[in-house]
């Protein structure tokens, strides 16, 4: 625990709270836009087909309809997009590759007219066989989802190999500390595992307001990465960056569903066709076929010496990215890393493949990779522990990497005290204490690469009214980024929080920020805010020294006032003639690969299984927020609690169910089950660990995603400890019940 500063280290109230609670906050769907047209999309009802004909005649007859837009209206453009692989047509161009793909758009004076008209467009499909299973799609000789060679998108790292097969991207990790084969007496565990497709469910689905103006594109979008959206739109529509303007209103949650580009290209394409501003508001059923979490299949093998020393791990992973790549290769890379686990192996051999199927596209979702793979690796550690008769915690502690050791060659060395984190969890779970039948405890440890890029800049300005404006392109998506950035500026500048305002992003004015994801807002964008604030502080003191005719080193800056012995001025006086500003960035952050720091994924859980129904209840979870420095402890705790509830959903309820034809069946929130408040664990303990070892401001590092890896694995571990081995998520009551029956019959005598 580090003592609190004037603003940093305090659980200050979020400045956006009142606006959100009172309804004053303006979201994309609320933006007043003169003359705006409403857009409704016609989506494919089949998973794979050639489009024989599209007839919009009836739709154009509907009163209020202005236009029906299809691929035919974009023939003058290279109308495909995709930041990693440029594989996605704005409108299906001759072929649909998933049920839900956008075939046409209606723009109308009212939402009702657009909705009515869109159902009257007639499309003739010549259906084709669909690849819905990731293993079948990756099999040799499988038909190809895309028949052209993949084109790298603007954000594809140079040198990335993209292949022609459905498994178009592989992330391999092969390293040997000891070049041998597993010894004869080694204990070996090998199984196959399944993670289902799930949906992020941000409370606000995607919203875009777009207009095509003589001087360029103007977009208001509920997006997490406005600068990458700008780049994508500039690329697709052939404009220089400065002629694309992206602004972000209040955003109702992201969780990765609003990362990179989503609905912006189609909205802009419609605005371009009709010459008027348009508004596109996804509903939940649209959002669910816009992006989701990758379904996964994995075969993993772990070998351990009889004395408990870890020897080798192998894994073959198939990530179902759907019909278009979206962020699939990145997710696949992180999944491959998560398969390793933070242990001292002699040999590691991982192949993670990103695979096209005829299902809706998959992208980022909080904790990706770690959520998919940590539970798989950790359940093998548990199984080995049981086979060797070694306590699960003890076995982990013996094999865990220490701070500074190499986790993955070429990547940042381990930068956290994982053993210390694990012990914190064990203590709060009463590790080793007896439990009644059908109860279990689980514990898990992992890390995930975070930060991703040092490209964040900020500008901090003192305005004549005495307030300080922070311009930073990290989005407030509910996680509290604006609060934290205001705290950092307030701390450095010696100001009260009420005098610091973090402005919404406008790419015409806000300094560049790569993205709001990978837990980077506090660490990377926050560092840029800190550096800009420090420069502003220096500038203010220099200006005050000149103003007061005293040497700088005799001045102090506190509570918005500059003092020298007996005299003091409010800093507002310094800006009387105009704003004083300073810039800063995070370029000092370095690190090979995607990890600017390793986000810690350590958690524990206690569960109780009802053997009669298969229902699992979770009386207690313990999460570790190993954040280096908690800029706002309350926000850290809320991050862990929010993530806990999402994990409960992924682990026990959530599963996108597709028909045999590849059509999403449970596309409503009644049929797709996210947890409710009644599913919250009775006790949620968040342990904040402050070792000051993060590369961000004041020693901070990011949080909020690690729980997805750590707690999913801890819940699997706990259910297994209660007597029910788990190889597939979600652990829904019917599955758990079936597993109980199988376990009972497998072990029955005779």
């Amino acid at each position, binding site marked *: 625990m580090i003592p609190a500063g004037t603003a940093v280290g305090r659980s200050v109230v979020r400045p956006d709270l009142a606006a959100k609670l009172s309804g004053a906050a303006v979201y994309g769907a609320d933006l007043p836009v003169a003359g705006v047209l409403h857009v409704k999309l016609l989506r494919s*009802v089949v998973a794979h087909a050639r489009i024989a004909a599209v007839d919009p005649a009836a739709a154009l007859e*509907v*009163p209020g309809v202005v236009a029906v837009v299809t691929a035919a209206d974009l023939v003058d453009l290279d109308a495909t997009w995709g930041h990693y692989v440029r594989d996605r047509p704005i409108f299906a161009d001759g072929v649909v590759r998933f049920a839900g793909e956008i075939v046409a758009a209606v723009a109308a004076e009212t939402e*009702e*007219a657009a909705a*009515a*008209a869109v*159902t009257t467009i007639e499309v003739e499909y010549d259906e084709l066989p669909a690849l819905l299973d990731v293993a079948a799609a990756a099999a040799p000789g499988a038909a190809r989802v895309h028949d052209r060679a993949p084109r790298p998108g603007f954000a594809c790292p140079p040198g990335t190999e993209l292949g022609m097969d459905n498994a178009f991207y592989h992330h391999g990790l092969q390293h040997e500390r000891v070049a041998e084969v597993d010894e004869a007496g080694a204990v070996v565990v090998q199984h196959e595992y399944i993670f289902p497709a799930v949906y992020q469910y941000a409370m606000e689905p995607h919203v875009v307001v777009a207009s095509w103006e003589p001087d360029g594109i103007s977009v208001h979008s509920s997006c997490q990465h406005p600068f990458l959206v700008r780049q994508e739109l500039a690329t697709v529509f052939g404009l220089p960056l400065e002629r694309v303007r992206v602004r972000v209103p209040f955003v109702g949650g992201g969780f990765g569903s609003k990362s990179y580009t989503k609905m912006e290209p189609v909205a802009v394409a419609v605005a371009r066709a009709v010459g008027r501003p348009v508004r596109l508001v996804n509903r939940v059923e649209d959002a669910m076929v816009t992006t989701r979490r990758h379904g996964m299949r994995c075969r993993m093998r772990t070998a351990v010496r009889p004395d408990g020393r870890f020897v080798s791990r192998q894994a073959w992973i198939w990530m179902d990215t759907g019909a278009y790549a979206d962020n699939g290769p990145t997710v696949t890379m992180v999944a491959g890393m998560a398969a390793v686990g933070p242990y001292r192996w002699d040999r590691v051999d991982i192949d993670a493949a990103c695979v096209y199927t005829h299902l809706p596209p998959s992208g980022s979702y909080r904790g990706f990779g770690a959520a998919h793979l940590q539970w798989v690796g950790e359940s093998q550690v548990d199984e080995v522990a049981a086979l060797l008769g070694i306590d699960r915690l003890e076995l982990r502690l013996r094999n865990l990497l220490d701070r500074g050791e190499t986790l993955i060659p070429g990547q940042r060395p381990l930068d956290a005290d994982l053993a210390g984190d694990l012990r914190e969890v064990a203590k709060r779970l009463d590790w080793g204490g007896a439990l009644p039948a059908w109860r279990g405890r689980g514990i898990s440890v992992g890390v995930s690469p975070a930060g991703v890029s040092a490209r964040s800049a900020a500008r901090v300005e003192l305005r004549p009214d005495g307030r300080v404006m922070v311009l930073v392109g990290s989005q407030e998506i509910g996680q509290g980024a604006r609060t934290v950035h205001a705290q950092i500026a307030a701390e450095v500048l010696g100001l009260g929080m009420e005098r610091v305002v973090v402005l919404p992003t406008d790419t015409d004015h806000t300094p560049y920020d790569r993205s709001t994801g990978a837990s980077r807002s506090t660490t990377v964008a926050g560092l840029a805010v800190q550096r800009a604030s420090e420069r502003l502080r220096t500038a203010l003191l220099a200006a005050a020294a000149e103003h007061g005719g005293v040497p700088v080193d005799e001045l102090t800056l506190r509570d918005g006032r500059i003092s020298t012995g007996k005299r003091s001025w409010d800093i507002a006086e310094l800006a009387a003639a105009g704003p004083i500003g300073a810039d800063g960035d995070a370029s000092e952050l370095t690190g090979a690969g995607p990890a600017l720091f390793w986000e810690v994924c350590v958690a524990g859980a206690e569960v109780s299984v009802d053997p*009669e*129904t*298969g*229902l699992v209840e979770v009386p207690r979870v313990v999460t570790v927020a190993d954040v280096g420095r908690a800029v706002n402890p309350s926000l850290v705790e809320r991050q862990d609690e929010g993530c806990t509830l999402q994990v409960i959903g992924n682990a026990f*309820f959530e599963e996108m*169910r597709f*028909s*045999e034809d590849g*059509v999403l*069946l*449970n596309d409503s929130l*009644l*049929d797709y*089950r996210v*947890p*409710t*408040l*009644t*599913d919250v664990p009775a006790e949620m303990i968040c342990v904040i660990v402050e070792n000051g070892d993060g590369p961000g401001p004041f020693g901070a590092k990011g949080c909020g995603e690690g729980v997805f890896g750590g707690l999913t694995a801890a819940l699997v571990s706990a259910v297994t400890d209660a007597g029910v081995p788990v190889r597939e998520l979600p652990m*829904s*009551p*019917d599955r758990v*019940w*079936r597993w109980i029956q199988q376990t009972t019959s497998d072990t029955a005598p005779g």
Partner: protein
Amino acid sequence: MRTLEYVRVGEPAQAVAELAADPAAAFLAGGTTQLDLMKIGTVTARRLVDITRLPLRDVTFDGGDLRVGALVTMERLAREPVVAQRLPVLRDALLAGASVQLRNAATIGGNLLQRTRCPYFRDVATACNKRDPGAGCAALEGVHRNHAILGTSPHCIATHPSDLAVALVALDAVVRLLGPDGPRTVPLTGFYLPPDDTPRLETVLRHGDLVTGVDIPLPAQGTRSGYLKVRDRASYDFALASAAVVADPGRTRVALGGVATVPWRARRAEAVLREAPEAFVAAAGAELADAEPRRDNGYKVELARRTLIRALSTWAAP
């Protein structure tokens, strides 16, 4: 564009006449299901007759019966003192049946007529004999984890979704109707029709019939009763299996929900209990003996059996 007519009526007879005159008309009460189904195209009414102004909002006690108007909301009925004191099975079923927002809007009459959650019924692009007779049933070989194991037919295996109706079937409630030919009453146990080869016909109602209320005979003083609902998620979810138990002195009445095509009065279980009042396991076994599970809903046989045993152990044990 789809056009929709809307008319508001003040008298039950007027409501019946409005509907009888137009085969494409439907009643609108709480609207919590009807409007959703119209938006997705499953229900294609062209004229809505708003019955919310009809004088059917009273709850009265009449001799041995609790008389509940069809427009009484779920929340109101659940909070009636007599329901809390004498009909815990009804209170439990109402409270388990929907979130408070829905309970404040949804009516008792509407609840009894709510439609199945079968995804194929709701997705107009798929085959469904209930929506489109003769089209086939996509659920038979499709996703049917939450489909019925009792009362099924080769043409439909859709589960009846109501919790309330399960409790009312166990309580021997009687539905009051007003039709073009005047008023009549139907016992709830005979109100719902199993799918057989006409899954479209879900109840004995004819076009123009208006549910005006439900009469619930109060069980004897000292009767224990309750409703146990088992589901994937602790709230805002339909039953995977549920059981209503009304243990009058000397006689136990039982119904099952979440597992059958209609609210399922468990007559076989009751017959076993008449002979042996504490033979809970045998009673549950007898009721489920002829269950017909399919590929993915076999777990429901055991789940329903155990749900019933637990409910009986809770409310029918001496």
